[in-house]
């Protein structure tokens, strides 16, 4: 291990001041950072503990927007009865992630910044990895790519964004409030995550001295018609083979608007506008749901071992749409 210093911040201004130094990492729950430090991927010189900052763990489910303080734990947010009732897609995306113990520790802000589970990224210097060591190449290309991206990849990187919560938030047009020495700003989630392109070492558009304060989600009267449908190699405690975050604005059987995002198959949380467009104004039937699922994977590029996810993903989207529809009408 690399020696590092640890300090605890009392306010977000303390944090921003500390972030101007070199090699600084913020820690809240630590569930990702410690793991990556043990693997030698993150080697901070200074760790600033933000978990004691007051007020950043508040959750407000208002009539116009939902606000999640970055330091709220995954468990606290996921176990909110109001969220489960009115936005099951958000609650499920948290509950189907990690384990109870990890969810107790992890925060909803930190969760957004977890890094890829690509084995070549995680497994040491013997594997070429542009994300870990820029310019070294990508061992995943032509390798064991069952868990790699079909959407959003580049010749430099096909590592999947591993999270669930951000996928659900992306479907719901969420944004994050941030603070940096340049002041406060708001970034739509759709713009927060970068495509890898030629610089996969940078996962997000956050600046090195920028901190997420809270997450905002526009309220939707039809939030109950939603689900986070996650298909994985076991029933719990696993990353997604493919997941679909779906929310439907329905007028009877007719779709006024559909929100669809994919997880487990893309280099970042992946919105599927062509699938949404295919449903808009249409009657939702199982056949049309499957058409939408197929549309969501238009343009997908399969590797050696992950082609099955095009069909699996289409069916997962279709199932999610039908679950959302059922929730709209069946309760």
């Amino acid at each position, binding site marked *: 291990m690399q020696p590092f210093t640890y300090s605890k911040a009392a306010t977000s201004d303390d944090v921003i001041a500390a972030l101007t130094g070199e090699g600084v990492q913020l820690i809240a729950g630590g569930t990702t950072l410690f793991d990556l430090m043990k693997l030698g991927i993150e080697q901070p010189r200074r760790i600033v503990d933000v978990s004691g900052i007051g007020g950043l763990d508040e959750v407000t489910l208002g009539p116009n927007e939902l606000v999640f303080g970055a330091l709220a734990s995954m468990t606290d947010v996921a176990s909110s009865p109001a969220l489960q009732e009115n936005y099951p897609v958000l609650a499920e995306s948290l509950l189907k992630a990690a384990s109870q113990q990890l969810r107790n520790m992890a925060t909803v802000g930190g969760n957004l910044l977890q890094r890829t*589970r690509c*084995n070549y990224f995680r497994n040491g210097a013997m*594997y070429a990895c542009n994300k870990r060591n820029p310019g070294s190449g990508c061992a995943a290309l032509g390798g064991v790519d069952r868990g790699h991206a079909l959407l959003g990849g580049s010749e430099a990187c096909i590592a999947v964004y591993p999270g669930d919560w951000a996928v659900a938030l992306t479907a719901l047009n969420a944004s994050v409030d941030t603070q940096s020495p340049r002041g406060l700003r708001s970034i739509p989630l759709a713009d927060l995550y970068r495509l890898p392109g030629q610089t996969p070492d940078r996962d997000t558009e956050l600046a090195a001295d920028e901190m997420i304060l809270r997450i905002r989600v526009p309220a939707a009267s039809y939030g109950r018609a939603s689900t986070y449908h996650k298909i994985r190699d*076991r029933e719990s405690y696993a990353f997604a083979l493919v997941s679909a975050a779906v929310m439907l604005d329905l007028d009877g059987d007719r779709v006024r608007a559909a929100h669809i995002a994919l997880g487990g198959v893309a280099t970042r949380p992946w919105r599927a506008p062509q699938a949404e467009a295919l449903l808009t104004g249409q009657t939702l039937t199982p056949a049309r749901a499957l058409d939408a699922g197929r549309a969501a994977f238009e343009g997908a590029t399969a590797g050696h071992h992950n082609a*099955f996810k095009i069909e*699996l993903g289409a069916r997962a989207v*279709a199932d999610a749409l039908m679950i959302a529809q059922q929730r709209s009408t069946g309760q």
Partner: protein
Amino acid sequence: MTTHTFPDRARVDALDKVRGATQYAADVAVDRMTHAMTVPSEIVKGRLVSVDVQAARAIPGVLRVLTYQDFQDVAEAVLGAVGPYSFRTYHAMLSDRLIYRGEPIALVVAETLEIAIEAAALVTATYAPDAFSPNIDAEGTEVFVPEGSISFGDFDQAFDSAAVTIEAEYNHAAQHQNPMELISTTADFRGGHLYIHEGSQSSGAIKFGVALSLGLDPERVHVMSPTVGGGFGQKNSMQQQTVLVARAAMLIGRPVKLVLPRGQIFHMATYRPVSRHRIRLGLDAAGKIVAASYDGQQQNSRAETFRGAFSETAARIYAIANYRSSEQLIRTDTQSPGFMRAPFEHPASFAFESAIDELAHAAGLDPVALRLANQAETDPVTGLPFTSRHLVECLTEGARRFGWDDRSPAIGSMQDADGLLIGYGVGVGCYKAATSPVIARLRVSADGRSRISLSGHEMGQGMRNVIVAALVARLDIDPQQLEVIIGEPDGAPQHVTAGSWGTASVVPAVEAVADEWRRKLDDLRDGRSVAGNVHQVLFRLKRPYIDAEVQVLAPGQPVAVMDRLRQSLPSAVGPQYPEFVGLSFSAHFVEVRVEPSTRRIRVSRVVSVIDCGTVMSPRTAESQVYGGVIWGIAAALREISEQDPRYGGVLNNDLADYVVPVNADIGAIDVSFVNKPDPLLNAAGVKGLGEVAMVGVAAAIANAVHHATGKRIRSLPIRIEDVL
């Protein structure tokens, strides 16, 4: 149906375990202890040109960075003599030769674990790599054909004249045990004696293996392995690191502890290798299976002759008169594979019991009825009688408990209220009922204390429970003050505990030593026996204690085998004894539910009925079967050691990416036992249980998946893409 001869008894170690008080070898801390960390090789095969340890040595707190050059004095001894103490002949870090990815090239010893880890990361090496063959499909593998494959009758003639035939090839992926307790060694050399703490199924092999490797008197090597945090065959011999750590402790003059990280265990430890099974079956018009052929291939390392004895069990289930088998070891550039729970029997039963299901389907027969109609009455391989065989009862009772009669035979014809496809499948298994010789020593004292020392290791399976159950049934002693010393060669000679022979070996020894002890007590009373608490009898007799010792052989074993036991050399026998063949049997019935859209498979229900002779410890026996069934589910649907052939080794070498089942994956498991004493193997009527519990589960699942979906998946694990 189950009537236990022995009462239900809580685990003797339950309270300690749930409080976290049980100390495993990897938890041991001794005075002035130092910490070691290995540096894994980054190439698969070749030579180590140089190792740069300067940066590592410069870290404050680093005591020593050892390379193969520090182990030159042990090389010859290990390579020449370790064979009997390890089924692996290749040991890392004894030369500049490298034969597998992840092989250690340096051992860092430091004041703290953190320093050792940091310094290990700074060790660099230059290599002269060679071309390699990472798996059995690669160029450049070697085929080794061991002698002694099982064949009898005239397969060709019988197969050609059969009314219904099937032919299929089945594949089993490489899998790793991943016991919770990591592989570790703590070595302490003081006063001319070497003390080793290591979680092992074979503490005696460590004692004698280390002594031979380092040129020490075995009497000066003391090994402690009282409680093992899971072994499953991965800890059944001396490990590669044991001698290295012991030598490091001697060089440094302080105790050294090494706990291998999980990621390195995927490379340093043994595992279940890849295997292939080509099977042909022929059925006559009367519904008798008349011909079977079994061509097996198993992955091996370049250095070993670890064979895949698939037909040892596959040929013994059914009365098939014409059987032919062949066996090949495919040598690849990998670390040595080894024994993983039901090492041959599990993959063999997946293949053979899938083939039987394919035959039943092809012939339009009920899979249970086909099995019942073809049961072997005597051992087909040797012609000898079975010691006991209740597989028919396992099948009929299992079918009854499961509700097999409700099965609608047509593919995909059963659905539940939610529209999930339901499939029913069956698979049976057998496993050798082996026995090892045991020396047992018992002291019972007037002050209420007792101590029994004998050969055996507690890997969590419940060995101590069995010993206590057998002893208190024989002698009226205070079980609260009974000390059971196992896994310690200083207490009694230690044989490897594996192959499901633990219970059948220790129970007769416990009973014999109790009887011997009773005889010595009665001798004091002129042969008059007396009832009641024996501590009080001793007290009244004014005798502080009585010692007794017995040695117990397996049926038909010569007394000379005791010399092998005293040196901890493998001395177990079975399934074939001079006058009979001993096997345990299992039948598993599985219900799967398959989502019609995304095809997720859930094992909703398993019914398992086991014939293991007498059930000595009902609670730990049931627990063994739960574990076996769950591992069968894991092997069938979850576990695979993934490899990128460009790099060799295992890519998904952590517990996040090596997928084992979680609680949510496991449905209802109904366990019951025939519980009829075996009349021939030993007086207690015990056969083995630990491994037969798993045998047949994977095939039952694959057969159920076929029944639900019509997809015959012949490669494990079955994953979502296979049934989409």
